[in-house]
């Protein structure tokens, strides 16, 4: 096991770099997981995030505000157009509403009485505009002898309708936790690809020296045995890295493991790691150029992640993008994380696709290695 021992020795020499790389990405994964909103499983009305600036402060404007508060979340804003525009641009607020001083008068005259900053292309804008127009239409409908009937309007607005949530197959109830695991493990695929190629590539460069290469060629070590030991070395390093990420999820959300299908994520991430390890093996056999390896690490990891739905959800991506994504194992990995799995059979297709990729990568790697050895 000389080759294996040497491989581990070099890996240990580089442990500082590999570990700090892993830790940086672990922190990124954790941040990525926490950035997402939690959802519930029974029907709840969507509450928009709106900001209100009231320059009128009349009875009418206050009752409008009360009505909007009941339906939406109010966020802080300030009367500064640049600030407001940025809040809309970034999606911090769905709409910012400015009520003018002569609000009551304008409402009676049915003029454009409220300024709304929002994005016309969003359904949310439709909703907030509907809410305001409805309220003011009702107000004007009750306008008699110079007075509104705010009480009647309020009573009418309290009238609700029933919404029934049609039974869904999903047995995982706690959506917030399910989402966390989904995002965390989806992001792991990016990280695993980036670290495997970069870190293992770093260790492998020591085997690239021409002199060492020639010496290895004339040694009595068999081609397959040599590759087996190299691969075993890579497997050890890779296993450690994946383990760190699995442990990361246990440490962070350990108490919720019972509420999600944890085995699904673990099996999936192990299979995916294996497939990416084979990809790494292939890349290292095609080239030992450190620049190309670093480049591959970043381009392949970011590129496949974007196209396979790690960064942007698969349902948002175009059909053509997904068609291309099917040529990478990441697509199948993300697919499993996104779906509800009741038994292993539910994900057999996606798992076998990943394994198929692994075998193809491995065989191609061995082929290139053989070609190189003959040269």
């Amino acid at each position: 096991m000389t080759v294996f021992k040497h491989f581990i020795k070099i890996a240990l020499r580089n442990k500082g770099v590999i570990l700090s790389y892993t830790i940086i990405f672990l922190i990124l994964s954790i941040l990525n997981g926490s950035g997402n909103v939690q959802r519930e499983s029974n029907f709840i009305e969507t509450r928009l995030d709106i900001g209100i600036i009231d320059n009128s402060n009349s009875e009418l404007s206050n009752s409008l505000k009360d009505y909007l508060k009941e339906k939406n979340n109010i966020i802080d804003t300030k009367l500064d157009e640049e600030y407001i525009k940025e809040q809309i641009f970034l999606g911090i607020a769905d709409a910012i509403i400015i009520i003018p001083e002569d609000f009551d008068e304008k409402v009676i005259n049915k003029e454009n009485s409220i300024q709304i900053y929002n994005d016309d292309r969003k359904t949310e804008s439709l909703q907030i505009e509907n809410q305001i127009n409805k309220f003011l239409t009702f107000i004007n409908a009750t306008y008699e002898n110079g007075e509104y009937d705010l009480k009647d309007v309020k009573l009418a607005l309290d009238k609700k309708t029933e919404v029934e949530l049609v039974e869904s197959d999903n047995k995982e109830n706690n959506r917030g936790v399910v989402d966390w695991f989904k995002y965390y493990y989806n992001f792991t695929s990016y990280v695993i690809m980036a670290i495997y190629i970069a870190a293992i590539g770093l260790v492998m460069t020591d085997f690239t020296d021409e002199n060492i290469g020639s010496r290895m060629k004339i040694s009595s070590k068999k081609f397959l045995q040599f590759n087996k030991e190299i691969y075993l070395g890579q497997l050890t390093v890779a296993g450690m890295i994946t383990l760190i990420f699995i442990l990361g999820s246990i440490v962070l959300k350990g108490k919720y493991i019972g509420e999600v299908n944890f085995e699904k994520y673990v099996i999936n991430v192990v299979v995916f790691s294996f497939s990416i390890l084979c990809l790494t093996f292939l890349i290292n056999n095609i080239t030992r150029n450190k620049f190309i390896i670093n480049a591959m690490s970043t381009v392949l990891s970011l590129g496949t992640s974007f196209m396979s739905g790690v960064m942007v959800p698969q349902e948002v991506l175009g059909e053509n993008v997904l068609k291309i994504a099917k040529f990478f194992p990441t697509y199948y990995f993300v697919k499993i994380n996104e779906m509800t799995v009741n038994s292993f059979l539910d994900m057999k297709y996606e798992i076998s696709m990943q394994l198929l990729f692994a075998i193809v990568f491995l065989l191609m790697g061995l082929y290139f290695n053989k070609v190189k050895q003959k040269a």
Partner: protein
Amino acid sequence: MKNIFRNCIYQGKNLFRDFGFSFWSLIYPLIMAIFFYTALSEVLNSELENINVGVDSENPIVYILEEIDFLNIHEITQDEIVKKLDNEEIDGFIDRDLNIKVKESGINQTIIKEVVEQIKQMEKLNRPIENYDFEADYILDRNQKANSLVIIFYSLIAMVSTYGIFAGIETVSLIQANLSNIGERLNITPLRKSKFLLAGVIVALFLNLFANGILIIFIKYALKINLFNEIKYSAILLIMGNLFGVALGVFIGASNKKSSNVKTLIAIAITLALSFLSGMMNPEIKVMIDENAPILSRINPISIITNNLYRINLLESTKSVGEGILILSIYCIVLIFTSYIFLRRKNYDSI
């Protein structure tokens, strides 16, 4: 002066022929832009879509619903409801008693609920129908596009504007005798290292700016995404980004004795992590940081560039540009000064 000029030419040729440089600065940003574009093009061109509502043929309010612009009405039978909801052909179903069936909570479902409620509420309010003026529009619409995904592109540009970092690392290793052969030779000549370093910085700066220019032209004319409406401040920010990148590269190169391979990895990790925090992989991260630790986005150099780029180009706001440029300048000065301390007066007994 002539000396610096000659050094610039040599180092420029040297760098340009280096595969690493051409890849990271020229090709890689283009590849990333294409990836981002293919992944996001459909999201970027989103438009307001109508809401699909299912009703059965005897629904008493069909004629009202059909009047509403943003609803598409589909007449379906009782046993199709679940299937159509599952396939997302309809967002919700309204039955004869004005009860609603949906499959998930969402904005479209909420709007359907509000429409039905409005009809019930009008009954409850009990005023003659002519009192309602549905033609009246009380809203003065101030449209501002919400497009946090564009941040990804600005963040990409911000990241590659710091890619002078690789040239910075390279230049420093050229003048250090313990790191490169040329360094050894340079150290025994009467040539001044500082001039050689200065030439390296100038070359790195110009070549990377050139690469940035190509990326911007590519995004604008090939991908047809309009990112730059304001040139002056955008250019200053990009130049500052370049300067920062080169300074950081020089600092990484000078501050430790690791191999250039490791240094490149450090450089990639730092720029990627900073870009991540500025929203390159998920704009929600940026929003989250802005809300919980705003100081982070004010000191993160890539965030400074990203934020100011979208502010000046899309929001026409130049308020925070001054502060950003100041902070970037401080970084550059500190990095260059500490690198200088690392590099000065080095003697080697044996190499």
